[in-house]
């Protein structure tokens, strides 16, 4: 038990994974001496050497493409994408190769690769540094997509991701990197599981990554108004933990999904469709979505208005309760 930041939770998770398995290698831009722009890999090159913590040329297709080759040779590569908006040059390798190689090879080839992506807004960054692109990957069969929201999960989920024999897109909520919390002795369930992080009866809030904290704050605020909100941290977006989500939805009958990504075809769309299919008669209100607007991520001076916040979550809760 120790208190640490979300970023350092990942660092220690990576360290543990690297100590346990010599085949774990890290690849990325500036991850060596600099320790990555968010210092997540700080100290790892010093301790594990340049062969295992590889400062690559500046080319994301090259990074993921060579990581595929290393995986074929038996390595377990962990790739760092410097910022969410820089993953697209590697998109082809991720969706056409990483996601498909296991199935294409009839199971003879495995792709135990983790692609770490610091994602989302809220840090006042310039363009391309605040994207929430999880839909692209969650829609792609063959990938697992997860997002951590606190130091404990950050630590354990990265270890689980590295241990998974499937490729995992690992989203890190960059504006929560510096949030502190305890890292417990064991993971909370496996990589595909959601977790109820606050129990409640009136409305269910479904969130992941940076929005979990926002939803918890909303729940606290709502309590003052006598409203009991349940908050579920989805943790995994592909697969969705439909059992956990359904259980909560059935209990409250009202669901609000919250994410930074644009709502149009955001994860909220899938959750709404799935919940309506599975619990048609149990929902008292339509699943409501609170997300980024359907516009390119705006200049940072507008990001507070773009991003879902406590008020917008509570507004949706009100609307849900009005049904």
């Amino acid at each position: 038990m120790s208190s640490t930041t979300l970023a350092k939770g990942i660092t220690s998770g990576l360290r543990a994974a690297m100590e346990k398995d010599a085949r774990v290698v890290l690849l990325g831009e500036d991850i060596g001496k600099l320790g990555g722009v968010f210092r997540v890999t700080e100290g790892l090159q010093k301790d594990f050497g340049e062969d295992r913590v590889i400062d690559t040329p500046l080319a994301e297709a090259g990074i993921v493409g060579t990581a595929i080759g290393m995986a074929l040779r038996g390595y377990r590569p962990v790739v760092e994408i410097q910022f969410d908006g820089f993953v697209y040059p590697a998109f082809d390798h991720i969706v056409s190769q990483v996601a498909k190689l296991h199935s294409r090879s009839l199971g003879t080839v495995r792709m135990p690769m983790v692609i770490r992506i610091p994602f989302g807004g809220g840090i006042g960054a310039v363009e391309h540094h605040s994207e929430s692109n999880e839909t692209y990957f969650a829609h792609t069969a063959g990938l697992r997509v997860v997002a951590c929201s606190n130091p404990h999960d950050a630590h354990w989920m990265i270890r689980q991701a590295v241990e998974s024999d499937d490729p995992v897109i690992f989203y890190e909520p960059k504006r929560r990197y510096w949030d502190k919390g305890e890292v417990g002795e064991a993971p909370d369930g496996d990589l595909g599981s959601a977790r109820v992080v606050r129990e409640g009866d009136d409305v269910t809030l479904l969130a992941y990554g940076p929005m979990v904290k926002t939803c918890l704050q909303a729940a606290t605020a709502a309590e003052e108004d006598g409203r009991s909100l349940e908050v579920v941290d989805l943790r995994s977006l592909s697969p969705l933990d439909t059992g956990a989500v359904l259980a909560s939805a059935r209990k409250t009958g009202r669901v609000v999904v919250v994410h930074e990504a644009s709502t149009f075809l955001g994860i909220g769309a899938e959750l709404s469709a799935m919940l309506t299919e599975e619990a048609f008669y149990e929902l008292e209100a339509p699943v409501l979505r609170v997300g980024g607007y359907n516009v390119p991520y705006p200049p940072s001076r507008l990001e507070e208005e773009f991003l879902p916040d406590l008020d917008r979550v509570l507004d949706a809760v009100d609307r849900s309760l009005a049904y």
Partner: protein
Amino acid sequence: MSDNEVAPLETAYGVDHHVTRADAPDRPAQEGGPDMVQLLSPEGERVPHPELDGIVDALSDEALRGLYRDLALVRRFDAEATALQRQGELGLWASLLGQEAAQVGSGRALRRQDYAFPTYREHGVAWCRGVDPVNLLGMFRGVNHGGWDPNEKNFHLYTIIIGAQTLHATGYAMGVQRDGDVGTGDEGRDTAVIAYFGDGATSQGDVSEALVFAGVNNSPVVFFCQNNQWAISEPNEKQTRAPLWHRARGFGFPGIRVDGNDVLAVYAVTKQALDAARTGQGPTFVEAFTYRMGAHTTSDDPTKYRVSAEVEVWKHRDPIERYKRWLTTTGKADADFFDAVDAEADELGGSVRERCLAMPDPEGPEMFRHVYAEEHPVTAREREWFEGYHASFEEEVAR
């Protein structure tokens, strides 16, 4: 096939290139130019080459006949596949006609521990890697996306996304380096990787990135470009202004052009490059100058975009004819040998045909297998649904 010593590379690769603004593209002459390494003329005469002769001279007559057998069998297999496609047994076929020497020459230069990354046309390399040819048909018949275990054959699955495999090869080679399997001096251990790609592929960013990564890491990988002059309907000059073998220099390692229709030259040049790689001298770019004698694939109609006179010119440079002539005139092989190979080729053709027709169609639920290595609830639920749904039809039919 016997192994040879590493010849000094500098001499072979010391050719200089100087691009001026006046530099003209290769077509329409499509001559390899004075820098192209050739050991056998189109007429089947041995062209001396001080640096490479040693590699070829070290081959036993049996090995030399073996190369011929490879060429002939691969061509026969390819013809059978084309026929199978015409008869509707395959959805598509990408013929290697004309490129047999480039593929067999390089494929036979590989050691067992080496690893090859093919495009979709490397049937000759697959043959050299011991892949049962019938397994190459699965993808084209639509029964699978690749019918062999890459790790068993050290031969990756066919890659359709142009150029992607060059990065996979480079990463694999980076893994080889980390395993310490370079420059140990142990013949059975030192490992090289070879990436196959076409002339069109050189335009893809992926290929250039592979050159960057391989150069920076000094990785044991050979970039083997079969310049068959065409990328579907686009001639080479739509892809590049400079000869392709010039490309590598700017990434920090040597490039060389070899006559891709000369199996001996391809063998020697590739072997030298592979040995350079495995001994820690880093990557080499080999441009095998060859020609796609047939259509791009069976779906293609080359009469739309190229003249038959061009094909005629290249017929004269046929890789198998020239090699046969040389084997004959040097007395390394006689009519009996060629007859035996012909017979074996017919047998192979028949067997491939028979086994192709016998290939079972996959069962529906197969598509849900192997999507993930570990249990995935969405896939599991869908497979269940799928099975239930189809079972309900069978019940209906049964009633």
